[in-house]
């Protein structure tokens, strides 16, 4: 809408080429050559940032994501400092070993002690939800990083090399695409339960990351192919830059726009997969908690203690909701051409 009327840089270059980041880099390179400093210009990133800020839903998403992330990172420590318990503290007093409703003290009166109530063992649900958020966020971020690393390297090499190698590599991706991954992941996690909770987490990162790099590889390859015949690559090659350096220093940074967008949308999908596996009892295992495993616990006590499901479930839904809005907003901001009208 409004952002379409932006002054169009596209006219400067051949129209069929995906334009954007390389202009920014080119400007910077020239700037560095001339003055030795980075020139302040209206770069693609700055334009994108402005467009993002104009999108109210994306800003809302960004705000909620930040709030939830900060709460998850700092919250458990604060609760421990203030109230003296963590997500796994079980009360000493045997009469407290049951599930209290939100804001209820044992005598049934209003109390600030447990704003989200307690679970069957008397553990504070707020502390559990925040600690679960830590694990869920960590799994989502690291698994996305794994998929980024594999996807970018694979896609960039395939796209830059081209020819037979490219054909073969993409053929492999096609084949992997049609495999029923989830089934294999379930088998893997059910049959090879790790010895320690930490090893279990590592298994999750690996399993989830290994599943989600395929689309990333395709996106990167497409970008690299559209970039590799441009003059700045030719210039790099002419000055004797090595192939790996051309790929990772010159081509990949220019292909980052779509990659960032897709990575933002990968985070919620990985988070959902982690929760799905934890719900089935295959992901994060006790004593560790994640939003998925909390929801699984809560679902079992649904009829009597609905708050055990509602708080982790709603927190997670809110996070996914905001991440999706942020991802959509980023896509519109970084790639106005494909903006959904």
């Amino acid at each position, binding site marked *: 809408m409004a952002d379409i009327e932006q002054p169009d840089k596209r006219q400067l270059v051949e129209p069929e080429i995906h334009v954007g980041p390389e202009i920014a880099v080119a400007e910077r390179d020239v700037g560095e050559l001339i003055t030795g400093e980075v020139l302040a210009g209206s770069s693609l990133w700055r334009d994108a940032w402005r467009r993002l800020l104009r999108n109210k839903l994306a800003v809302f998403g960004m705000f909620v994501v930040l709030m939830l992330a900060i709460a998850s990172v700092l919250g458990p420590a604060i609760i421990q400092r203030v109230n003296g318990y963590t997500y796994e503290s079980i009360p000493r007093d045997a009469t407290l070993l049951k599930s209290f409703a939100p804001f209820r003290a044992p005598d049934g009166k209003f109390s600030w002690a447990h704003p989200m109530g307690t679970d069957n063992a008397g553990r504070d649900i707020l502390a559990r939800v925040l600690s679960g958020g830590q694990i869920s966020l960590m799994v989502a971020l690291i698994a996305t990083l794994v998929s980024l690393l594999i996807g970018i390297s694979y896609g960039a090499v395939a796209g830059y090399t081209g020819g037979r190698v490219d054909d073969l590599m993409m053929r492999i991706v096609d*084949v992997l695409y*049609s*495999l*029923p991954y989830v089934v294999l992941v379930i088998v893997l996690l059910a049959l*090879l339960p790790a010895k320690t909770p930490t090893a279990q987490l590592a298994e999750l990162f690996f399993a989830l990351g290994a599943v989600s790099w395929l689309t990333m590889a395709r996106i990167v390859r497409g970008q690299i192919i559209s970039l590799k015949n441009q003059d700045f690559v030719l210039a790099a090659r002419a000055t004797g830059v090595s192939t790996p350096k051309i790929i990772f220093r010159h081509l990949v940074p220019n292909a980052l726009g779509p990659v960032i967008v897709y990575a933002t949308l990968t985070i919620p999908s990985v988070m959902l997969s982690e929760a799905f596996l934890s719900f089935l009892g295959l992901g994060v295992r006790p004593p560790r908690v994640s939003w*998925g495993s909390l929801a699984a616990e809560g679902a079992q006590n649904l009829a009597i203690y609905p708050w055990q*499901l509602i708080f982790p479930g709603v927190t*997670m839904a809110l996070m996914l909701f905001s991440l999706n809005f942020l991802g959509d907003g980023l896509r519109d901001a970084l790639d106005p051409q494909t903006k959904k009208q």
Partner: protein
Amino acid sequence: MFRFILRRIIIIIPMLFVVVSLTWVLVRLAPGNFYTGEKKLAPAIENNLREKYGLNKPWHVQYRKVLWNLARFDFGDSLKYEGQSVNQILWRTLPVSAVLGVTAYLLALIVGITMGTLAALKQNTWLDYASMTVAMLGISIPNFVLGPLLVLAFSLTLYWFPPALWNGFPSKSIVLPALTLSAIYIAYIARLTRSGMLEVLRSDYIRTARAKGLTERQVVIRHALRGGLLPVVSFSGPALAFLITGTVVVERIFALPGLGNYFINACFNRDEPLILGIVAFIAITVLVFNLLVDISYAFIDPRIRY
């Protein structure tokens, strides 16, 4: 076209082989086995059982047997459910999952396409915003949260539908599971339809259709939908994979006797023949379905040629 289909059919066979072999290796590599459960068997009994299922033979003999079983699609008897063959279990549980899945997907197609088309036609009105917000909610609320919440509202509070029962289709018992399963597809399909329709509605052939005096209804239904639904068709391929994971969760929430529920139990029980049978079955389904989707492109979009 014909050569393309033939090539795709031929490649299914090695892929199936890879999936089943990988699963078998995983089952084998995993520490422990079916008999290392809570109930310790007398060594003599365990040996007899191993003899019966051929588990005491060297690994290459067993692997050959697995491949032979795959070729005939007969994985023998389940270890856990004694006296029942894997195929019997498959044929008993499949209808449950299939009925649930198909009902949910049809529901999603109807609701999703309607929502998406309306949103595209009334772009930037409250109708558009409302349906896109609903769609975003559908994507963001995980089915294992939505399902129990629906149970809480409609079974435990309003007593409209049973919380965990299976009477097939049509019955009251399918409403909540199908709704839970279809929520995310409604959302995806609505979004895909909307963006597909928006793109198509601006294309030249729609302008031509309008210019030659067709009514808006004819333009939309006969011309725009066909092109606008292309993204929905391509979504149907990955949708099946999602649908399988979705039914696993939904069947567990509502305790339905479906394939997904049995699959998870088989994995936890290390019921080797049952795991292999279900994995092989799911793999075949997914591979064949992807093939069908690729072929159907060519019929919907005449520009695509293989």
